């Protein structure tokens, strides 16, 4: 599989893009809020945007090199692109949209390839429909098939799931993985949704304001966000300001408005102001009376402040019992199934947070 390596500098109006990453594995997700430069990065890789500097290579093919003044035109890059709104040719049928990518193929070969794509992408019966006559999920699959038709080494997907409902998303995720296993292409996908990135990618590149703030293998990034900003992108809703009050034996103790929280790891000296990050899904809830807890975990008495159901999950806001009786709010996401009974506002629980799940980032003191 051809490996993508990019270093892109570009200036678009007042926006500065300065992104570099090397693809590891076969799927990379570029994660960032809207306006972070994700789509611009994809466009530069595809040759639809001309960077002012940098170098882009795919395997041993150089696509762009500013020092060599080299830029391979888009049509010769052999990189598939699935646009956010699909950009299916509205005047061509599904079959002709697929065939468009197979210009110059032998007629029989082309027919075989189209049939293969129709079967793989479950488009049977839609061949003679126009894009405007099929559903969003079907359009998505046609766009994917069109991008894959010529057999590119790499395909770029811009927010591939944004216009789909939940079942269609799940289906597409499965189909993408099956297709990738079968056809053997690399993928770079752009998304603002952590769960999509997590579901598909083995490597994450996080962008903010045109810059890479963290990149690496998926698990590394999720388990050790490099900054509070990266953590926020990864869905760490709990980012609480605190102060280091103790540091011994590989455990750092932090005071958050009177609540003591322990974090695995050391290196921060006593007195350091920190942001303390905990992912909502790292928080477990046990009944208040249940005292049989062991191991290196924080056990914090909390009072349920609010509960919001989201499908099979619930977002629960928990008030920690601080020194003045009213501590900071903690947000937890818990699964509906196996939920302790009586999880209603006012109820008392214990929040259990593994020490490894408590992340600390020093805050530079404002002067």
């Amino acid at each position, binding site marked *: 599989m051809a490996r993508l390596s990019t270093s892109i500098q570009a200036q678009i109006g007042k926006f500065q893009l300065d992104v570099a990453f090397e693809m590891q594995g076969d799927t990379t997700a570029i994660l960032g809020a809207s306006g972070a430069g994700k789509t611009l990065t994809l466009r530069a890789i*595809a*040759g*639809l945007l001309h960077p002012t500097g940098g170098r882009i290579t795919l395997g041993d093919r150089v696509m762009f090199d500013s020092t060599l003044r080299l830029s391979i*035109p*888009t*049509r*010769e*890059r*052999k*990189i*598939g*692109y699935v*646009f956010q*709104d699909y*950009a*299916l*040719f*509205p*005047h061509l049928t599904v079959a002709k949209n697929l065939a*468009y*990518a197979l*210009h110059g193929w032998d007629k029989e070969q082309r027919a075989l390839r189209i049939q293969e794509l129709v079967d793989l992408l479950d488009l049977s019966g839609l061949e003679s429909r126009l894009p405007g006559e099929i559903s969003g999920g079907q359009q998505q699959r046609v766009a994917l098939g*069109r*991008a894959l*038709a*010529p057999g590119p080494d790499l395909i770029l997907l811009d927010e591939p799931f944004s216009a789909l409902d939940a079942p269609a998303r799940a289906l597409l995720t499965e189909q993408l993985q099956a297709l990738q296993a079968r056809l053997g292409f690399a993928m770079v996908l752009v998304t603002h949704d952590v769960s999509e990135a997590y579901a598909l990618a083995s490597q994450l590149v996080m962008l903010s304001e045109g810059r890479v703030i963290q990149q690496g293998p998926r698990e590394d990034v999720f388990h050790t966000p490099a900054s509070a900003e990266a953590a926020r992108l990864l869905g760490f809703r709990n980012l609480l300001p605190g102060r280091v009050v103790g540091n011994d034996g590989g455990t750092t103790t932090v005071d958050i408005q009177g609540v003591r929280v322990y974090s695995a790891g050391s290196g921060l000296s006593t007195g350091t102001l920190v942001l303390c990050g905990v992912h909502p899904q790292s928080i477990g809830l046990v009944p208040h009376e249940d005292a049989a807890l062991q191991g290196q975990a924080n056990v914090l008495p909390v009072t349920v402040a609010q509960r919001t159901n989201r499908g099979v999950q619930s977002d629960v806001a928990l008030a920690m019992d601080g020194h003045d009786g009213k501590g900071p709010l903690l947000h937890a996401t818990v699964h509906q199934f196996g939920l302790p009974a009586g999880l209603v506002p006012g109820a008392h629980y214990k929040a259990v947070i593994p020490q490894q799940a408590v992340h600390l980032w020093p805050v530079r003191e404002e002067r």
Partner: protein
Amino acid sequence: MDITALRLSLQIASVSTVLAIIIGVPVALLLARVRFRGRAVISALVLVPMLLPPSVMGFYLLQLVGRQSIVGSALESVFGFSLVFHWSGAVLAAFVASTPFLIRTAQAGFESVDPRYEEAARTLGRSELAIFWTVTMPLAWKTLLAGVALALARAMGEFGATLMVAGNIPGRTQTMSIAIYDAVQANRLNDAHVLAIALTLVTLGLLVGVGTLARGGKW
């Protein structure tokens, strides 16, 4: 009724419209798709013939191609041919008067095509020329055709500039619209009526024909 004037009008308008398509479509595409220095200037220049009185336009053209002008004398000495008092002069007048209509309409047509379709075609390995014929044109051609119809109608009705450049020579440069003027001047009102109705019907017929084409041949 003498049909020479009608034949001349049709001949001049169709040659002028063909020229308008050949010159106007690329200019419209350029204005719609490429951001270049001087784009605003060209955009404004395109508007000039629409804004100036036809007689002024005709006067300028006469200055440009008249026998004493550089272009005119060069044409005459090399080819022994002059645009002035010749039906080709009427073509020039009709072309200058009508092409802006085609350019403005075609530009809007090209701008209405989402550039993303062209980008998608690029990522699929197609050349710019192939993309123009397979993506841009099929999506813009109805608007383009409306522009052609407008240009054709404008060319059919051209009067002021044509009179200045080609004159009013019955059988040679006298088009329908000039023949109508001539008939009114000579108080031949019956002739004027017939000519006016004929011009109206022919122009309407052409527009309906173009409109039919745009709806894919269905009435």
